[in-house]
């Protein structure tokens, strides 16, 4: 048995056998063969098995995840059924007397080269990754090694992976994937956020060698402490089973908070809302008693597709969310694409500093054609619920004014075309230090502000939140960050508008007492954090938290001191 440490990224505990999501060794040597006919038969056998496998995966993906996710496998099958491709590979085997692996590599490489050279056609260029995937599958059968297909998992497992991509997690079957261990990223990496959405216990930033965990090893993932135990002893399994039971009990206990409004011990009502990434996430938000949606990331519409989403596609997604929330407030953020969320079909050039580059509102104001389509869809949806719209990455007042003008223009156009439009509240996401510092000026222009702490913290601390070597600088409790947050909240209140927060910090149990003391009006967090936050706030007295907040911003010089102050205040309660 060995215990490893990592970063606790998603609550819960799981015990299951390890499933390594790794790339097998697919290297081979080119060599000559004596019997081309036999080699061609071997090649066809590999093609047939690959196609059979793809059919199974396609079917499974279709049943468990949907048509869109299954589409890619259909394309893979089409490639393996291509008569030209097969004939060309056979010809190389016959003419050059080389092994099937070498012939396959040579022919598929030539196609990949052609596709990659089509700089003016993103759709096609992207297909070179499909050819790459299919080639790997056929190669694996020629070489007799096994590929790992997450969609084919049919027993309870803990996924062990270097990193998880959205396309990996899209293939996960929730009933089988019980836990996740990865050695990349921090609490705010995409795989961490994804695992919280799927409610799968996860430990990221694993501080050991993943290679030491073998397929089938029993693994305990403790997403509460960040511990990972490989091949635990019987008594440890017993101990963790008890811990799982306790965790479940606590969860059940918390569920009594589901239908209550959030109330502090002295009768204050901050709003606890949920952050969602897709309309599918609404179920978890509603089940966890969200009083609204504080952040609907609209990017999924752009990312789950190989072309720009149409106005109607967007309209129906937005309307769906508003209707399901039954009149509760919903804040939708216009597309935050670019940065680390690159869209292959938009062909934006690679940048040296994507987080400081062409993304979010910067892209929207440049590509107003794309922006207008989204705004029209939002305006049309606003007739179906309580909608607020906020712009991400606003840095200057002029950007905000331009965005508001374009929105107003679209509203007028829709109204003159007799399209039903509701009232929309307009806000900005405060995540750029320039906007945070000038919050009092921005407050004159908007109905609300929402502090996006994930980016604000990395910009204030000048530390990439995905970079493990500087992750120690990602400090939500740093007094510099807290002072800035307080000044934003104060600026909002002095100008008569509410202050919201939609970063991970809003659901952080240590930060909540301070933020509550600063008078934050809405906390928007991962759905799974809502009930425990409601339980926490129930025990807080706002007057004492005001004292705590003032104490931290005026006296603390380090994160550790802030944490210490919070503990002191909570103990006194």
């Amino acid at each position, binding site marked *: 048995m060995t215990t490893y440490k990592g970063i606790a990224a998603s609550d819960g505990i799981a015990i299951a056998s390890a499933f390594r999501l790794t790339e097998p060794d697919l290297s081979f040597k080119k060599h000559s063969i004596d019997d081309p006919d036999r080699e061609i038969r071997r090649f066809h056998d590999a093609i047939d098995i690959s196609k059979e496998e793809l059919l199974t995966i396609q079917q499974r993906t279709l049943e468990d995840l949907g048509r869109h996710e299954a589409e890619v496998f*259909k394309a893979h099958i089409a*490639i393996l059924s*291509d*008569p030209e*491709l097969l004939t060309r590979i056979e010809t190389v085997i016959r003419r050059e007397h080389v092994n099937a692996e070498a012939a396959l590599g040579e022919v598929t490489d030539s196609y990949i080269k052609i*596709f990659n050279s089509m700089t*003016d056609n993103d759709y*096609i260029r992207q297909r070179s990754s499909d*050819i790459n995937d299919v080639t790997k599958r056929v190669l694996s059968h020629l070489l007799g090694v096994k590929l790992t297909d997450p969609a084919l998992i049919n027993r309870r497992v803990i996924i062990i992976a270097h990193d998880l991509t959205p396309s990996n997690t899209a293939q996960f079957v929730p009933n089988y994937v019980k836990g996740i261990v990865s050695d990349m990223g921090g609490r705010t990496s995409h795989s961490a956020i994804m695992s919280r959405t799927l409610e799968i216990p996860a430990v990221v930033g694993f501080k050991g060698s993943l290679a030491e965990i073998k397929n089938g090893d029993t693994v305990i993932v403790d997403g509460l402490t960040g511990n990972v135990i490989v091949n635990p002893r019987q008594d440890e399994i017993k101990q963790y089973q008890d811990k799982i039971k306790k965790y479940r009990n606590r969860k059940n206990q918390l569920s009594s908070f589901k239908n209550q409004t959030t109330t502090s011990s002295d009768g204050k009502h901050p709003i606890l809302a949920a952050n969602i990434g897709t309309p599918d996430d609404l179920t978890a938000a509603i089940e966890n008693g969200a009083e609204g949606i504080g952040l609907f990331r609209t990017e999924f519409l752009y990312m789950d597709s190989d072309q720009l989403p149409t106005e109607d596609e967007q309209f129906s997604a937005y309307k769906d969310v508003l209707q399901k929330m039954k009149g509760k407030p919903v804040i939708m953020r216009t597309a935050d694409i670019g940065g680390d969320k690159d869209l292959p079909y938009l062909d934006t050039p690679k940048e040296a500093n994507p987080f400081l580059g062409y993304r979010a509102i910067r892209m929207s104001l440049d590509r107003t054609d794309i922006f207008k389509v989204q705004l029209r869809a939002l305006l049309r949806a606003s007739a179906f619920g309580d909608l607020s719209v906020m712009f991400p990455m606003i840095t200057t007042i002029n950007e905000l004014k331009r965005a508001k003008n374009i929105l107003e223009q679209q509203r007028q156009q829709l109204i003159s075309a007799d399209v039903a439009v509701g009232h929309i509240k307009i806000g900005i996401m405060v995540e750029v230090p320039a906007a945070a510092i000038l919050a009092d000026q921005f407050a004159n222009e908007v109905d609300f502000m929402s502090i996006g702490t994930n980016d604000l913290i990395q910009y204030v601390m000048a530390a990439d939140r995905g970079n493990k070597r500087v992750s120690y600088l990602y400090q939500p409790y740093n007094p510099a960050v807290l002072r800035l947050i307080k000044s934003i909240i104060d600026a909002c209140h002095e100008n008569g508008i509410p202050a919201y927060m939609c970063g991970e910090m809003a659901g952080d149990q240590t930060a909540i007492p301070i933020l509550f003391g600063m008078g934050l009006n809405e906390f928007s967090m991962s759905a799974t954090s809502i009930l425990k936050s409601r339980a926490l706030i129930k025990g807080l007295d706002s007057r004492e938290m005001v004292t705590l907040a003032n104490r931290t911003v005026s006296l603390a010089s380090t994160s550790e001191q802030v944490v210490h102050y919070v503990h002191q205040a909570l103990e006194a309660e």
Partner: protein
Amino acid sequence: MEKRQYNIIAETGIHARPATLLVQTASKFNADITLEYQEKSVNLKSIMGVMSLGVGQSASVTITADGDDEKQAIDAITETMKAEGLTD
């Protein structure tokens, strides 16, 4: 031999999904079917061939079918082209 010319009106040209459907349609027929664009000609039953042409918007392409079911083939392909909004 049946031959027909089409103007591609789809903004994204013949991209992955319509290409797959065109190939599926073509593969149902015995006739040899080719797609010609900018003096290059490929087998319309080959997805890789079709995609490697990189047919973009406002391109003019010619499809030729040669075989016992050439007429039905061209009709079916024309229908797919229209259904996918590639041509009008």
